[in-house]
Each structure stands twice: as C-alpha cells, then as structure tokens.
C-alpha cells in the first residue's frame, strides 16, 4: 500500500490532489470542477491551480458565493451522469450547504428506490493551526460520518491524497474529501501514474506490538512522532490510519486491538461526539476480552477553536499529548481479577 521506493517522485499534498483531479479529468470527459475562485485563481488553497488553464472554463467553473447551489449543482449534474467535483473551500462552510449534503446528496438514491447514482465529490479544507479562528478551523467529519449515504475521506499523506482522491472521483456515491489545510505544503513520495487507493481500507502506517494508535489526517504524523518517542521507552506502537471514516475499516482496527490489547484513538476534532467515540465503542464491543486498558481517546477539548496561537497550540492535539495518552494505557495494572 505504501510507496517508499527511492525512485518515487516527491510531491506536496496540494499537488497530489491537483494531479489526481488533472489525470482523472484527462481520462474522463464527464468530470468537471465547480467552486468559488477555483478558476484562474486555482482555489484559495491552490488545490485547483492550473486546472482551468488546461481544461477551460467549461470544465473548471467559478461559481457565485452560494454553497447550497454549489452542492445542488453537483447533485443535479451527478444525477444526470456527470462526475462533479465541487469545492466548499473551508470545511466550516459545509454547514451552509448542509441540507444539500445531508438531505439531498446522501439520500436521493435510497429515497428514489435505487434508481439514482450520485457520483459527486465534495472537497473542502479542514483543520486548525492557521489562527483562522472558530469559523475557519473546524474538523466536522463526525457530522458527515453519521449520515448514511455519504463517504468521508481524510488522507494523511500526499501518496494517500492522490490515490484516495482518484477513488472519490470514480466513486458512484457522494464522497466528502477533507484536505487538511496545514498539510498542503507537506511533501512525500507520489507516483506519477494514476493509481487508486480503495475507500474503506485502513492502512497500517507503522506496525507494532504493544499498543494500537488509530489516527487519521494530520494526526497520523503526530502519532508517528509520539511512536518514535515511545519506541525509545521500549513501547512499540502500531499506527492504523483508517484513511476513510465512512466506510470505516473496523476489521483492521479490531484486529490490531486484539493483537496489541491497548488502543488510543486520536483526532483533531472535538473529542466529545467525535468519530473517535464510534471507534472506541466498536473496539470495546469487538475486542472486549482482549483489552488490557480502556480505549483512550485524544481529541480537541470542548470549545470552539480559539484564534490566539497560544491557545490554539494547546487546543490541537499533538505528539506530546498522544504520547501521554499512550502511556496512560500502560499506567494501570494489566488486566487481572
């Protein structure tokens, strides 16, 4: 699954997204992109850079500031057989378009008795860390994962970004691709050819024996740092990146939990009611007799994202907090009666 051979080209996350879209658009005339400022400007995060130049205004469309109509445009065009990629800029703005996402895109197929296909990809930039304050920093994926009909994708590396975005575009169901704003410039190996990473298949980013860390998006790299630290302390972490939160590869997560007997789930989203709760709940259901400690959860505290860099730095989970969370699972006696 990973591609770490030396010859592989390095590409930043933002360009991995861009290349996925570009290569898919070359292949399939039915794909188009629409969103605010994605044309000549290439999108506020640069993710759509140069696409209008290559594909023209017909296929890369600047829209009015109208998130409901942007998603609706995607839903209607998808029902008619096109493969729209619609951009919502900041993940927070999905709240403006929530009806079209939750009540339309997610439900049309089922409500229509199966006749519709909705090959729609919604993209947005999530996550904190840019001092962008409470309305431009949220990680709202838990809201989407609770809605049957949607798929939710959260790449943690340039390699995954490209392969997962290709799968989103080719997927016949509405997907939400969450780009982490703070990873845009992060580089990693990305093959030039078009490749797809299947949705719903977790990636064991780091094999280990002593504790399982489930992390996704930007938290994977923080978990890796924590794992290095813990390795020095003699604890080998297995890091499982679900890659997609909906569908969730529960089997891989549970198997790892059964192997290591200890689990910490990490996300940048608010801890209360986050997808970490679902993952923890599933693990204790499926690996109850294997657990030597409660499944730990690391997430943001229960507040809006603060503007102040000082406060935001405390707000966002990081390697140190993850390491502490991992240590805590060992801080109690191994299970015994």
């Amino acid at each position: 699954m990973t591609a770490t051979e030396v010859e592989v080209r390095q590409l930043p996350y933002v360009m991995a997204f861009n290349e996925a879209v570009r290569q898919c658009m070359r292949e399939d005339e039915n794909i188009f992109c629409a969103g605010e400022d994605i044309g000549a400007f290439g999108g506020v995060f640069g993710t759509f850079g140069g696409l209008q130049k290559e594909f023209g205004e017909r296929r890369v469309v600047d829209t009015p500031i109208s998130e409901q109509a942007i998603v609706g445009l995607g839903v209607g065009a998808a029902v008619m057989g096109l493969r729209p990629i619609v951009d919502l800029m900041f993940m927070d703005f999905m709240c403006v378009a929530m009806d079209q996402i939750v009540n339309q895109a997610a439900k049309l197929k089922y409500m229509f008795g199966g006749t519709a296909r909705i090959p729609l990809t919604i993209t947005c930039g999530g996550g904190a860390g840019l001092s962008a304050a409470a309305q431009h920093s949220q990680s709202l994926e838990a809201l989407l994962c609770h809605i049957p009909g949607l798929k939710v994708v959260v790449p943690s590396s340039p390699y995954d970004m490209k392969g997962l975005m290709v799968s989103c575009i080719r997927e016949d169901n509405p997907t939400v691709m969450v780009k982490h704003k703070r990873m845009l410039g992060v580089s990693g190996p990305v093959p030039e050819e078009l490749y797809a990473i299947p949705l719903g298949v977790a990636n064991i980013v780091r094999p280990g024996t002593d504790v399982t860390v489930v992390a996704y998006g930007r938290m994977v790299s923080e978990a890796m740092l924590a794992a290095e630290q813990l390795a020095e302390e003699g604890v080998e972490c297995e890091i499982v990146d679900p890659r997609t939160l909906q569908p969730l590869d529960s089997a891989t997560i549970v198997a790892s939990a059964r192997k290591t007997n200890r689990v910490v789930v990490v996300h940048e989203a608010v801890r209360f009611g986050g997808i970490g709760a679902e993952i923890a709940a599933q693990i204790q259901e499926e690996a109850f007799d294997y657990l030597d400690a409660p499944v730990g959860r690391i997430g943001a505290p229960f507040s809006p994202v603060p503007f102040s860099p000082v406060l935001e730095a405390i707000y966002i989970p990081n390697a140190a907090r993850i390491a502490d969370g991992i240590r805590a699972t060992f801080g109690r006696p191994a299970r015994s009666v």
Partner: protein
Amino acid sequence: MELTDDTLRDLHRRMVRIRLFEEAAGRLAEANKLPGFLHLYVGEEAVAAGVCVALTDEDQITSTHRGHGHLVAKGGDFNRMMAELMAKSTGYCKGKGGSMHISDLELGMLGANGIVGAGTPIAVGAGFANKYRDNGKVAAAFFGDGATNIGAFHEAANMACALKLPVVFVCENNEYGEFTPRHKTMAITDIVDRAVGYGMPSVMVDGMDAVAVYEAAVEAVARARAGAGPSLIEAKTYRYYNHHGVQNLGLKYRPDAEVERWKERDAINGIQARMAEAGVMTPDQAEAVWAEIRADIDAAIKFADESPTPDPSMLLVDVYSQNVEAL
C-alpha cells in the same frame, strides 16, 4: 407559435390525469390506505400540464412536496405511482420514498422533494449537465410562492443566470405556504418581481389557463434551448384541498368565498369549454377521456392493492450504489 388541436387535447388529457389521480389519492388517504403525508395538486393542474407539454420527454424537471401532478404531467405511470403512495415494492421508489420523493429518472423527473426549495439547485445541476453536453435539453424547476423565500431558491436562480444555464423556473403561486397567506411572508405581490434581481426574463400568467402557461413555457423553453439562459414563469393558481391531506383542518385560514372564486375558474372546465367552442372536443369526447383515465386509475389502485409490501431484506439495499453491508 401555433396552438394545435393536438396540443389542446394533450393539455386536457394531462390535466384530467392529474385531477383523477389526485382525487383518487385523496379518497385513499381518507380511507387510511396511504401512509405518511399527502400534498394534493388539485386545482393547479394547468401549471404542470402547461409546462410539461412544452417540454420533451428528454427534458428534466424537479419538483416539490406537492409532486404527483408534476410526475403525472411528465408522463408518470399510474401503477407505479399508486403503488408508491401505498408503500408497495412495485412503486416508483420501491416503497422507500413515498409521496414526497416520487421520481422517475427515465422520464427526467428528478424527484419530488420534502425540503422546500431544495429542488431548485438540483435543477440548476441538471441544466448545467445539459449545457455541458450541449444536448439542447432543458431543466424546469417547479416550486411554490413560499419557496421563493428560502435561500436555496435565491442561490439557484442567481447561479443559473450567472452561468446562463438552460433552466426554466416555474413558480406555482397559490398564495399560501401551508396555512400562512403570502402577504405575511413577503412584502411583494408578484413573484416575477424577484426575477429582476437575477437579470432573468420573467412572465406572469394565469395559472388556471393551461394554454397561457403552455405558451409562456414554450417561449421560456425556446430561450433556454437557444442558449439564452433561464426564465421565470409565475403562474397564479390555487390548491383546492388543504395543504396536506384532504379536509381543511379545524382552522379556517382561507375564506370559503376565496376558494369558490378560484374553483369557478377551474382550469379543466376552462379548457373543455374552449375546446368545445372551437370544435376540438365535444363534451362527450371529453367525458370519454375522463372515463378512460378513470379506468386507468382503477386499474392502478388494483395493481397497487395487490402488490406486495417491500421485503424486510430491502431495508439496507440502495443506501449506496454498490451496496455496503449493514453497520
């Protein structure tokens, strides 16, 4: 633009089909044979018929919570419609959608919609697809007067104009949103006034006159097909029954005299009189149309009645395109 006799007959037939379907649905609802909500279209037939006669089978429409009339006008199959209202597996949505989500993608009917206004951006998407493919097709969005107060309508209308898409916006102004009269929810009288803000051509027509609606629709559809962008048609019309269900509830939110005034201008009576006068259709011929459609309705009810309810195993089917397992 010539108005042929066939067009008149077509308008008439579609309207009678709507009327009889809806009245049958009303009776079934009163007999507790229809689960869920039922929003009847009776009284507004001229709008759906007028617009859909101006469209081809390849054009698309989006609809509202009051969607049966639109599907019938677009050519919907009585059997599958009635079966859907009765929540049977043979229904358009296999019993999973019901009245508020009835749809026939093959007829370009992209769904009734339970969220007021939400169909309008979807019509914009369909119009976009038409333009993208340069296929000469048009998407029409039906919506109510009340729906023009909601943000989704505004965004859809503006985006269609900004992108110059082949979309026709059709407002069924029946003067009420649920039980609240229009004047309480907007300071304007005519929805066409809203078109100004989008730079969209608009026309106000008598929604009780199918020919007037049809003629306006022909013009708007031609404009859209020619690549000249969207239009708004406001049809002044009226629903005879309650917002949902059949009987008015206890509250009298509409004066009897108002209801009667509108009924006197009934669209089907109107077109029948016109056709009789023009020698296009005698009263006997008209009656034959009614009788034929009545028989179709009876057959549809029988079909629906005899159809099975959905098998429990269907619950988790069609959540996704390749079905995923239950969680």
